[in-house]
């Protein structure tokens, strides 16, 4: 019975996530037609703006310019989260594509870095708390991710669940045929916490890249607002 409940919860959380993504996509689509609340002075966006944005997204340039301390934790966290997510795709493909097989060792290293980076960010926030803005939402999300990743790492290092049954369970969720839950309390906690987190993932993971692109376009445009081309 528990396996059916977890499978249904996983689907509900996933649908919730997709709905939020769809809502963001609609906003983005409308935004692309009406980019700013004032006349656009730069109608043709040069390629350099797109290149800068890609670099911004990959290397978090704007955070780097603002705070090197935060950048260190933030960049390591996001990049390791990305590779850990990629590593987890192995549970959702009956046979894994070659490119994802190649990335598995990177995902493993990222798995070690992920909780460390979160610990660093939480510690940094706590130390800097005086006269600073502390977002309780960010603390909760970071804390949950820390526990999820630490449990994942504990399973990898000390209490390995039966990976075959994990894969069968994961495939069963999207195949709409619930499979028995792997016999591991840690796995139950790991997936349970993740399902709680999924609908509440911060919206900036979708919105920030587009806002970043708009910010770079605006900075480029600033040269032409009142100056002759």
């Amino acid at each position, binding site marked *: 019975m528990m396996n059916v409940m977890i499978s249904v919860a996983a689907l509900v959380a996933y649908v919730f996530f997709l709905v939020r993504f769809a809502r963001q996509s609609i906003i983005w689509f409308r935004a692309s037609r009406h980019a700013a609340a004032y*006349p656009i002075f730069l109608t043709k966006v040069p390629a350099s703006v797109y290149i800068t944005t890609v670099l911004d997204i990959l290397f978090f340039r704007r955070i780097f310019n603002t705070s090197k301390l935060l950048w260190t934790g933030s960049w390591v966290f996001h990049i390791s989260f990305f590779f850990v997510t990629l590593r987890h795709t192995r549970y959702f493909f009956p046979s894994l594509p070659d490119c994802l097989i190649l990335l598995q060792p990177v995902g493993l290293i990222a798995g070690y870095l992920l909780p460390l980076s979160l610990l660093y960010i939480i510690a940094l926030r706590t130390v800097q708390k005086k006269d600073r803005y502390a977002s309780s939402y960010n603390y909760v999300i970071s804390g949950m991710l820390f526990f999820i990743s630490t449990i994942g790492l504990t399973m990898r290092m000390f209490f390995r669940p039966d990976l075959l049954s994990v894969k069968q369970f994961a495939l069963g969720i999207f195949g709409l045929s619930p499979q028995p839950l792997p016999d591991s309390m840690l796995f139950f906690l790991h997936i349970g916490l993740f399902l709680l987190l999924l609908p509440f993932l911060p919206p900036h993971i979708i919105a920030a890249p587009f806002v970043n692109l708009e910010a770079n376009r605006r900075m480029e445009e600033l040269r032409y607002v009142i*100056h002759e081309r």
Partner: protein
Amino acid sequence: MKDKKESFTRNLTPMQVMELDACTQCGECLQHCPVQEVTGRPSISTPEKIRVFREFIKATGGLKARFFNPKEIDKELLQDFTKAVFECTTCGACGQKCAVGINTQRLWPYLRKEMFDRGLVDYEILTNMPDAIKKSGNPYNFPVEERFKPWFPEQVKVAEKSEIAYYAGCSGVYGAKPMVRGDVLVLDAIGDPFTMLTEEEEVCCGFPLFISGQHDMLEDLTKRLVEAYKAKGTKVLVCSCPCCVNVMTRDWPAFYGKELPFKIRHMTQYVADALKQRKIMVKKELKERIIYHDPCYLSRGVGVIEEPREVLRAIPGIELLEFDRHGSESRCCGAGGAVRKVFNENAIAIGRLAIDEAVAKKADKLILSCPACYGKVNEAMQDHDRKIPIVDIMELFAQHVERVET
């Protein structure tokens, strides 16, 4: 007042809604906020305002609100938010340093508009503004007949019609007379005939209405001014007030409904061009260390950063110093946001930060180029233990410039 249950996104562009979602709540922007610097209250900070506004959006336009009845928002929360969004100087420094690049200088006026539309704003200095403009043409309700007379240099001739026009602006003519006087003297020295509207015709540019979220009169004001300059045959409209220049460049085309029939130029751009074309020369030396303060709506707003420096460097003997935060990253003088009189304590404290830094850098003069900055920083120096002469850029330049006779 519009329906209280209407969505809080109605005044925002989709990109602005996305900007609200893009805030990572990292809080790094607080280090660059002048209001935070003097109040130390994160509860009125950018990420907190964005978080609260997101809650408002969710309550009235979220999925739950769409399927069930929208939630009534706590009145106290709405009032606290309104105060926070008006306590901001709208300088935009938080957006400039934002980890994702949110355009806060542009966002705050629209959040203020939402609060205005919901009848939550009761600052008399703002609510009286539309009537004051209707009555006297300026937001301060000063007499129309005193707009030009007290400061306009008698020897300067204004053409009836000309391709060059000068807009003095309300804050300058009533609150920073040496600045507008300097503008006119420099324009005269350049030698190209220039025209001006009459005291009755030169009404508010609309900036204080725009920034405070009262947009109803903007189209009318814009059309009146644009048509009046068009009738004068204007091809270039020169103005030295950063706020006026900002609204003219960014918003007038939208309120006018099409491209403006003339170009907008900031006074320092016009002077820098005149220097390049050798229409004027600076002969008188000034052996002083001066420090220039970039107005937020000029530097971050429209990107005029180099020209004021070119103008100042044209004066022989000057050593030009820079604030730690300058150019597009400059720190507000405290006067921004249109409610400096309500949050006067903040404004004075922020103004003193500029004075203190200028004194610490051993500058002989603090050079400003904004009438709001001019008024507030001068006020901040009263009863302050540190003193420095405060001079407007054109006030200074007018004392050193000479016309090149052709």
